[in-house]
């Protein structure tokens, strides 16, 4: 078992170290970092905007590049949140709490240095977890029939929508909307066009790029226009030297990093608890363990190291169900899965055996990407920091151009651009009504496979809808449904019992998270 995993990993390094693949990974990290550091551009917007650029690249290169973009944009976001107190990605909201005070004390560079180390430690653990867990999961998942896959997807969708930000009910509503958008187009079995309003351009369904760029591009720009004040440039003079933490800071960071990593990897095992929740728990843990909990919020390096390590280890863990089961945990993973599908690769348990180059290449490239990230950020930090000062009024018009041309380039069709504008407008309306549109993407990506397996399961069971909870013949499916029920009951319990604690958490989110509200 261990030896096969290691030989496979060796093979993966062979794939990822091919010169052109290293190049794609490098470009991905570079561009992702560059865009991600810009204030107001979160990883979701960054990946959506760069997604169309990967269509012309072979599948392995494309996926390596996207993973690189993801890493880069995440780290770029950390720079933005520590130096400017401007979290563009929800997990970074916690990093701001102590990261920004450190910046004010002139230790922002050290905080960034610790972030680099923490993310590397967290990610490395997550990758190791993936190497050993994913193949095990696959051997189990390959035995799943349509009923099991269906119940598992239901669990994934439910977890992804209720454990994300905001009201669980609204999250489920968004997921259902996503499933409905996934239905648009010709029916797989009969070819009947559904919800196409007679428009031939919609027969192939809604384009994922149009959906993502509408929701995370146009809608976000509408929300942020004139809302982001000019950037405070006082703290943005950081050079290579400043990145080095002092011995004392390092000594305090190490244990926090390992605790954070542990928290993150545990969170990754619970479906739906993404990096945001992991970072919150890690921060709370650090605060509880610390001898001086009242010092948190005034610039404790542990408050940066713990959450950052936990974010990265849980993000890596999120790749496990995404790659081995084809079930994404959040909108970012849904986008990466969508990119795979555009390349003509069917996600699911058969991915590892059918496309070992993609799977193991991706794993190896995680490490390579992380190393590239360190190499890029340590000497070039001064340049990244300069990017922070680009005002939003120049940013969003340029980004809109990339949105337009990106959507156009997917099919060389202007209709898609119109689709994006409409989705953007609707997305903004949803934002105004306090919906978080990220689960839409989750539902959209899973929708068609969910329907297919649902219909198949019902066909096999001869129309008996109790097949999903049939303990005798489908114990695994029944177990997943049981988990779904537990999840719903737990949500109800939390809502009814602890409205006070919840209100506090929400207030904290609102306070630290001015822009990131649209993302889970």
């Amino acid at each position, binding site marked *: 078992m261990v030896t096969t995993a290691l030989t496979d990993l060796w093979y993966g390094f062979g794939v990822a170290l091919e010169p052109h693949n290293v190049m794609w990974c490098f470009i991905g990290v570079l561009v992702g970092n560059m865009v991600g550091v810009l204030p107001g551009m979160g990883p979701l917007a960054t990946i959506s905007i760069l997604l169309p*650029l990967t269509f*012309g690249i072979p599948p392995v290169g494309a996926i390596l590049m996207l993973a690189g973009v993801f890493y880069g944009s995440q780290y770029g976001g950390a720079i933005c949140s520590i130096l400017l107190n401007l979290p563009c990605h929800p997990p970074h909201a916690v990093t701001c709490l102590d990261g920004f005070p450190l910046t004010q004390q002139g230790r922002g560079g050290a905080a960034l240095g610790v972030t680099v180390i923490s993310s590397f430690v967290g990610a490395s653990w997550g990758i190791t977890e993936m190497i050993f867990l994913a193949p095990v999961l696959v051997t189990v998942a390959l035995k799943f029939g349509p009923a099991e896959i269906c119940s598992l997807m239901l669990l994934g969708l439910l977890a992804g929508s209720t454990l994300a930000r905001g*009201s669980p*009910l*609204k999250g*489920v*509503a968004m997921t*259902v*909307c996503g*499933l*409905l958008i996934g*239905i648009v187009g010709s*029916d797989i*079995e*009969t070819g*009947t066009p*559904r*919800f196409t309003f007679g428009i031939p351009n919609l027969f192939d369904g809604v384009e994922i790029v149009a959906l993502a760029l509408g929701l995370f591009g*146009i809608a976000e*720009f*509408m929300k942020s*226009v*004139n*809302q982001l004040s000019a950037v405070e440039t006082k703290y943005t003079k950081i050079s290579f030297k400043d990145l080095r933490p002092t011995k004392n800071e390092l000594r305090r960071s190490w244990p926090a990093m390992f605790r954070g990593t542990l928290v993150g990897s545990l969170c990754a095992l619970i479906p739906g608890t993404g990096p945001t929740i992991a970072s919150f728990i890690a921060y709370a843990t650090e605060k509880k363990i610390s001898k001086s909990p009242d010092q948190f919020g005034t610039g404790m390096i542990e408050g940066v190291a713990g959450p950052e390590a936990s974010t990265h280890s849980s993000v890596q863990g999120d790749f496990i169900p995404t790659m081995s089961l084809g079930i994404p945990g959040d909108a970012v993973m849904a986008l990466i899965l969508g990119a795979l599908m555009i390349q003509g690769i069917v996600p699911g348990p058969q991915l590892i055996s059918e496309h070992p180059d993609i799977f193991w290449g991706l794993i190896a490239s995680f490490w390579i990407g992380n190393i590239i990230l360190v190499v890029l950020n340590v000497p070039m930090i001064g340049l990244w920091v300069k990017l922070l000062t680009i005002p*939003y*009024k*120049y940013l*969003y*018009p*340029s980004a*809109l*151009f990339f*949105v*337009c*041309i990106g959507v*156009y*380039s997917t099919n*060389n069709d*202007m209709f898609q*651009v*119109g689709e*994006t*504008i409409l989705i*953007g*407008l609707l997305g*903004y309306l949803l934002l*105004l*009504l*306090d*919906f978080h549109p990220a689960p839409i993407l989750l539902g959209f990506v899973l929708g068609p496979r969910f*329907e297919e397996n*649902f*219909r198949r399961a*019902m*066909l096999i069971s*001869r*129309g*008996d*809808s109790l097949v999903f909870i049939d303990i005798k013949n489908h114990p695994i499916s029944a177990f997943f449904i049981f988990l779904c029920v537990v999840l719903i009951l737990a949500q109800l319990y939390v809502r009814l019992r602890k409205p006070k604690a919840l209100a506090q958490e929400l207030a904290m989110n609102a306070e630290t998270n001015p822009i990131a509200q649209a993302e889970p």
Partner: protein
Amino acid sequence: MFETQLKKRDFYAGGLMTLIGAAVTLDSTTYDVGTMTHMGPGMFPLILGIVLTIIGVLIFGTALATPLGPDESILPEQREWRGWACILAGPMLFILFGEFLGMAPATFVCVFVSALGDRTATVRGSAILALGITVFGVLLFSYILQLPFPIFRWGM
């Protein structure tokens, strides 16, 4: 009494979801629903439509039961009509100019118009930005990425 309810944001959120759910439910019956064993193309949307309607009603119901929150206005405090209009107009003009005049004019007008959405934007500043992005965009997409989109064209 009723007027207080009308002020709640979730009143409209729930209403919107109920409306979409009901519309989907109604529309999906126009497709072949089939039987439970042999599901037609209408069955899955029908189920989703019903689920969405129920969730919408639940959101609606929760809104009725909870007291009025401190901030229930749907539109943000500062209404950015100019910003919103410019952001939507930019891509629309991109479609129009792209279809008839080619990539370079489309890029210029898209960036120029959307840049005007910022309160502090000037015509000159927006034009310079638009010009810069146009040059960069044409270089990247036409020359490096070879996107089949003529830089200039006349008519369809």
